[in-house]
């Protein structure tokens, strides 16, 4: 075909007219299906729906819909005691006097999706054998290292043998998403990798579609043969919208029903101004935002400098600015956790109530009467940068100039994980197990390494100066919960006295919900993903 100027220009005009016309003709208001609840998360796409390999927290919303756990939180809060846990695939349980052996009775007649048969003790054993098998699974393995072995006693009885006593085994190990029970037959037939996008659980929803467009995420469809109360809504679509503006507009326009909130000052207020009917579901404690001082870097090897920084940070101001997501914390374990210190119970010498004059006096005593300057890394992620910018501003008031180097989140962690930062920052969600935060940040064996293969003890506590390792060993060997908590509190006070770590705030996970969605329960506290099985459009 020969192209000349007339046909070229004419063709272009015709094409444009056609496109414009089709755009106008299809310019209808986009329909909102009444049988699908849409929830948008701050991520770029699904990573995996394998409970043992999940590394992206928001994927766990789908995991807990597709799979069942042995026990679950009462909807939706951390229980006062383990006795308040909700039985799911487990119907009853008991432990030995030393809290090292846990026997669990399973529910009979529960079927896996897609005809993979009845869930039995073999599946439970297979699940936890897999969870503790290093090369096969992801980062969850550390949580299960205390499981020495899993035995079966008939098809409906499972016995967990632990290395060390764990009086909170059910709550701390079995009640989170990674305690989901998987089908042995399905994993063997479908494959170790493929099960991540072709899941087979016993849950109230089944996977319907993994959309090719990552932002459209996945769609789950109600399991018609569910053993418990059926799903209240036919489908749930988990979308991934990383851009804050796009996600915000999506809920304001009614395009989605729920979105993950933004942990930035003023964001919740601006949303309320725009639509006062929106509901903010916040689980506390969410992520623990802590800072650690690098004891190997001068002048932070001087306890007076570290204490000065602690007194110079106004944590009430920080939590107030990021309300309602952010809450004050006093010890390393938040007030809602067993043994967590409160404003009333924290010993005065480690409370570090905001006191800029005391901070200046400590700096002067340490040889810095005119203050000091140092360079520190932080992440561009909104919670990190917002908190660190506020701290930067507060420290200026005590003549400390913290020059912030704001990095891409992956690069920030890559550098911090080889121990380059002065004041390191971590934001991690943890189960309500008092020893967990201690194990993560304080033991000598968790010391950060320059090759990146170390742990999250960024301060070098227990190596640069004596630490809490003996006390921690005592706590882990103690089967009595009250006595264990007492030792943990002693550890917290010691670490705070040494000023190696400062708990800044607990930043709850927030979901903004359209008033059209009734969850069927109130969200109070708990893990950062709660069941949508009884959520309905009203």
């Amino acid at each position, binding site marked *: 075909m020969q192209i000349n100027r007339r046909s070229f220009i004419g063709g272009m005009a015709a094409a444009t007219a056609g496109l414009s016309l089709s755009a106008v003709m299809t310019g209808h208001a986009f329909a909102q299906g009444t049988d699908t609840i849409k929830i948008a998360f701050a991520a770029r796409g699904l990573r995996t729906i394998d409970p043992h390999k999940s590394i992206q927290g928001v994927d766990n919303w789908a995991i807990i819909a597709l799979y069942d756990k042995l026990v679950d939180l009462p909807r939706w809060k951390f229980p006062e005691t383990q006795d308040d846990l909700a039985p799911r695939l487990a119907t009853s349980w008991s432990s030995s006097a030393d809290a090292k052996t846990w026997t669990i009775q399973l529910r009979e007649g529960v079927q896996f999706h897609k005809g993979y048969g009845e869930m039995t003790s073999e599946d439970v054993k297979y699940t936890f054998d897999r969870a503790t098998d290093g090369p096969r699974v992801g980062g969850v393995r550390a949580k299960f290292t205390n499981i020495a072995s899993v035995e079966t006693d008939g098809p409906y009885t499972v016995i967990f043998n632990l290395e060390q006593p764990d009086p909170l085994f059910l709550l701390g190990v079995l009640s989170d998403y990674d305690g989901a029970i998987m089908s042995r037959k399905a994993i063997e037939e479908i494959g170790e990798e493929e099960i991540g996008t072709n899941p087979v659980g016993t849950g109230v929803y089944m996977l319907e579609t993994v959309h090719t467009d990552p932002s459209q995420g996945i769609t789950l469809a109600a399991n018609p043969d569910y053993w418990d109360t059926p799903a209240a809504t036919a489908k749930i679509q988990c979308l991934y919208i990383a*851009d804050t503006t796009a996600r915000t507009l999506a809920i304001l*326009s009614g395009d989605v029903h729920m979105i993950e909130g933004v942990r930035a000052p003023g964001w919740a207020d601006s949303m309320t101004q725009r639509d006062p009917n929106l509901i903010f579901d916040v689980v506390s404690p969410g992520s623990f935002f802590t800072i650690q001082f690098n004891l190997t870097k001068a002048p932070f090897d001087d306890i007076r400098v570290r204490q000065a920084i602690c007194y110079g940070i106004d944590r009430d101001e920080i939590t107030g600015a990021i309300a309602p997501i952010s809450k004050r914390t006093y010890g390393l374990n938040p007030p809602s956790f067993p043994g967590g210190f409160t404003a009333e119970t924290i010993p005065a010498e480690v409370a570090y109530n905001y006191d800029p004059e005391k901070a200046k006096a400590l700096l002067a005593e340490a040889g810095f009467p005119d203050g000091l300057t140092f360079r520190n890394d932080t992440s561009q992620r909104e919670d990190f940068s917002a908190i660190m910018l506020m701290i930067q501003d507060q420290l200026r008031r005590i003549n400390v100039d913290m020059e912030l180097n704001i*990095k891409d989140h*992956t690069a920030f*962690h890559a550098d911090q*994980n080889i121990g380059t930062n002065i004041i390191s920052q971590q934001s991690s969600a943890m189960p309500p197990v008092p020893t967990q935060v201690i194990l993560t940040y304080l033991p000598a064996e968790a010391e950060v390494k320059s090759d990146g293969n170390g742990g999250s003890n960024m301060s070098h506590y227990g190596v640069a100066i004596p630490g809490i390792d003996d006390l921690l060993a005592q706590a882990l060997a103690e089967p009595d919960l009250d006595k264990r908590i007492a030792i943990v509190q002693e550890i917290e006070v010691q670490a705070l006295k040494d000023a190696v770590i400062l708990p800044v705030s607990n930043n709850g996970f927030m979901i903004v919900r359209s008033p059209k969605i009734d969850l069927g329960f109130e969200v109070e506290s708990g893990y950062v993903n709660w069941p949508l099985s009884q959520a309905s459009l009203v």
Partner: protein
Amino acid sequence: MARYLLLRLADAVPTVFLVLLLVFIAMRILPGDPAIAALGDMATTEQLQLFRERMGLNDPLWLQFINFVKGVLTLDFGTSMMSNQSVLGLILYNLPYTIELTIVAMLIGILLGVPLGVIAATNRNKAPDSGVRAFSLIGYAIPDFYLGALLLITFSLNLGWFPINGGGEGFADRMYHVFLPALTLAFVKAAFIGRLTRTSLLEVLSKDYVRTARAKGAKENRVIYGHGLRNALLPITTGLGLSTLATLSGSVAIEMVFNRPGIGKLLISAIAERDYAVIQGGIVVFAMFVVLINLMMDLVYIVVDPRIRMK
């Protein structure tokens, strides 16, 4: 013609190779371990090692580069380190969305920009001309991602005329989804094309043959469109080529703002996650597009201006 095309393609080979090399080096300089990005901070050393082995990250750099180039030559870009999906599959899914955004934006930009340029040129130093010049200035000054957010809030959120996110399914739905993002990009294009048309047309309208046409009693429309605009098309076409490339680049921000699939959004996500395979594949495709668009513009010159002939 075939020989001409082959020569032009051969010219592009060193450019593409240089792009491959730069992309490869940039990825290795970028801080952040892809294994940790893929498996998370809590992964054990053993798991990280296995991942690096599986993804070929433990191979010497020169071998990784050779494998990368081989992959490009056979259109095998590997698999995404994050989602385990084929990179080619991801590109083939996302590419049409970027292409349609670029095409629709260009078409709207031309439809708005050329008439505006004609109006300005034929009303030189009068109110319409001042208006078009002001429009051009605004078009240049407003960042497209900001304009996109404004349009999104106005037309999608407040008026509900257009969807908030996504790329749509099926032709009509896709056009419905692409219209607002394309209009955002087209606004800047129209400003550029309008100014270019004005300048080019003013120059042509001062030529002797235009004066002759008028002296012969030709109607004004015939003078402007038949003699003026036709001859002003060549510089406009050059500008369009550059503008198309700019639109392609601009699509990155727009795809993020409108949360629609596309190569730009794919790349931004991959960079944040250090997904080497996707970044490399995506940039190679972008580079190919630049080469292709340049080639197409060369061909369009021949169509638009019969005086241009291949030697």
